């Protein structure tokens, strides 16, 4: 599932994410910087070893929520374009789970917007991760009230 609006691109995919391709989708000519977050699957969480992750989404709502965040980011920060792709399904250790790229005329706004976007994505976008261990598995629950 994907959507383009203005210079922005957002997608949910079960295929591996090509980081450079996502970042380089957005190179408006009035921009001088792209800040890209590469979120990937961690092997050790508080000392416990994860074998792999499974991500699941309420896809139609997740796309809507991501679009809302991108529109809010444009209101809050002096940025030009955003590209967000989240992976779903089974992910191995080290694989990219989420990419957020923000293009801006100057880097400071791009850094700030990227940080704000990942924080809000983790809080509001209906996507869940299951950590699978040697001896069991657990759906991780966020801390939103």
């Amino acid at each position, binding site marked *: 599932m994907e959507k383009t609006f203005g210079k922005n691109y957002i997608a949910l995919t079960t295929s591996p994410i090509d980081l450079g391709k996502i970042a380089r989708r957005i190179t408006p000519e009035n921009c001088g910087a792209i800040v890209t977050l590469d*979120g990937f699957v961690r092997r050790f969480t508080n000392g416990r070893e994860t074998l792999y992750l499974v*991500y*699941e*989404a*309420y896809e*139609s*709502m*997740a796309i*809507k929520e991501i679009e809302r965040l991108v529109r809010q980011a444009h209101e809050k920060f002096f940025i030009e374009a955003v590209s967000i792709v*989240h992976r779903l399904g089974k992910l191995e250790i080290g694989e990219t*789970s*989420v990419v957020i790229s923000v293009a801006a005329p100057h880097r400071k706004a791009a850094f700030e917007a990227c940080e704000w976007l*990942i924080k809000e*994505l*983790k*809080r*509001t*976008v*209906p*996507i*869940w*991760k*299951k950590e699978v261990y040697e001896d069991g598995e657990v*759906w*991780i*629950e*966020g*801390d*939103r*009230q």
Partner: protein
Amino acid sequence: MIMQIKVLFFGATADIVGSRELVLSLPENSKAIDAFQKVIKEFPSLEKHKLLFAVNEEYSKGEELLKEGDELAIFTAVSGG
């Protein structure tokens, strides 16, 4: 009058219910919270979790009235990223 709505589950809630989608029959003028109470009665272990609702793909506090064909999603606090 009785209406039918769709109830969706994801991740932990889907595992508890053993299904991703149920059809629920409710009296007209029921709220999302009424639908939720009915689901909880059938699957009490849902209550061990902190749950969020969405009605027709928008977060909800559960107070609005549902109408025929609405989509209620019941899920745990999100954990993407």
